């Protein structure tokens, strides 16, 4: 039923607008609840309202993330940070744990099917996770409005990448570079769609590793999962096949986000009241999303996700600039 509904681009557009308007209403309610002056303690919003709304919204985000082919974290942080009353410190801490939980859940299956490659992931993860610690420390030291401005700009950049980046199923790698050769970064996997075993290796590893420093910093700073950046670097720059890139990227998040998550945890930037409903909501939503995926029109959903990110990115930017508080 839901899958049938999601086949029509007009319906998808309508649902996107409804979802955006709901977020605006949520945000307006949040700012109204905060701006009642003077706010006597017993007139504040009941504690269970926001976690419940959070659970519902993250459930929807979980569905959209699977259908739109993005990680939960990249939707979670700008949307929850922009439209809920929680401080961006706690939202980023929760965002990392949401992305981490998703990666931990997907990791075992991807590793066992030999789609996520330890040989590719280990060197990259070392660079990205070390950089993510630095990113987390920078992020927690910056003022919230600066974080929001940078976050908004990053999300708008992600929108451009999602809307324009090409993907290559089997990139041509004429010769592995020296690092790839000495570390033996290569493998073979069964590509069921063409019924063949595909051999792969990578090149331009030094350039890739340099970019993973930037990716790690951004992941830690904003609490975003970094699949949106991992996949283009692994696939388009380093030349790993698309399936290997997507699977290794997902697995990579379980390592990159771990290091940043520890920094947030140690700095007390983790609130169970935000984290647990979000993780459970996103995971349940992802399970429903996987079921819908087979029947829904991915292109229409992809544009819906891009539209949502555009909206959330603008919101973060305007919030940071104190134009839309």
């Amino acid at each position: 039923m839901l899958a049938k509904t999601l086949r029509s681009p007009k319906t998808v557009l309508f649902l996107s607008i409804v979802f955006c308007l709901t977020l605006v209403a949520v945000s307006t309610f949040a700012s109204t609840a905060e701006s009642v002056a003077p706010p006597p303690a017993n007139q504040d919003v009941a504690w269970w309202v926001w976690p419940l709304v959070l659970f519902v919204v993250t459930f929807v985000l979980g569905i959209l993330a699977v259908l739109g082919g993005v990680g939960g974290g990249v939707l979670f942080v700008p949307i929850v940070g922009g439209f809920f009353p929680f401080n961006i410190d706690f939202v980023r801490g929760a965002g990392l744990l949401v992305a981490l939980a998703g990666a931990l859940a997907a990791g075992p299956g991807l590793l066992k099917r030999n789609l996520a490659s330890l040989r590719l992931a280990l060197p990259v993860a070392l660079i990205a996770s070390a950089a993510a610690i630095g990113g987390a420390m920078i992020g927690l030291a910056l003022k919230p409005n600066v974080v929001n401005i940078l976050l908004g700009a990053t999300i708008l950049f992600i929108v451009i990448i999602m809307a324009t980046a090409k993907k290559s199923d089997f990139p041509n790698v004429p010769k592995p570079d020296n690092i790839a050769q000495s570390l033996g970064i290569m493998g073979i996997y069964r590509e069921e769609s063409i019924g063949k075993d595909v051999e792969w290796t990578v090149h331009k590893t030094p350039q890739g590793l340099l970019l993973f420093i930037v990716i790690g910093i951004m992941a830690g700073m904003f609490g975003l999962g970094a699949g949106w950046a991992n996949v283009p670097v692994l696939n388009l720059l380093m030349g790993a096949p698309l399936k290997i890139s997507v699977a290794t990227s997902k697995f990579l998040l379980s390592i990159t986000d771990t290091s940043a998550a520890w920094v947030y945890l140690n700095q007390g930037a983790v609130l169970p009241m935000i984290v647990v409903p979000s993780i459970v909501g996103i995971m349940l939503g992802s399970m429903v999303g996987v079921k819908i995926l087979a029947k829904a029109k991915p292109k229409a959903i992809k544009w819906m996700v891009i539209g949502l990110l555009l909206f959330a990115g603008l919101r973060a930017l305007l919030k940071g600039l104190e134009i839309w508080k």
Partner: protein
Amino acid sequence: MANDKTKASEEQIVYANILNKGMWSGLALLIITFIIYISGALPSHVPIEELSKTPPGSDVPYWSMRAHDFNQAFNIPTGWGWTALAGKGDYLNFVGIAWLAGLTILCYSAIIPILLRKKETPYVLIAIAEIAVLVLAASGILKVGGH
């Protein structure tokens, strides 16, 4: 038909198995401790109904405060100081969170003997360096300033 070369390596399988068991046990722990927290079965360090309240002298509720200010308001220790509060409903949740965040260290530790046996020296060094990075992050030694 898929041949042996397409199969995952021994270290990949070991890593995956630990991750799988660890993830599900961590998730179960997280849900159980959260139920204990919201049911009030254990008293919380920060009373649950306080989170959405606006303290006197502030214009935002507690959960809208920066982490640093929130910790100061409730005298919450940073680093591993939360373990002293693990008997409280809210900080009991940190056990599951820390378990999930610590899983990767466990997985890396488990594959090092396999990599050593296979004489994969560069990967042994990478795995040891990764454990060092994660232990450093988890240690609480790294402090964030700027508030």
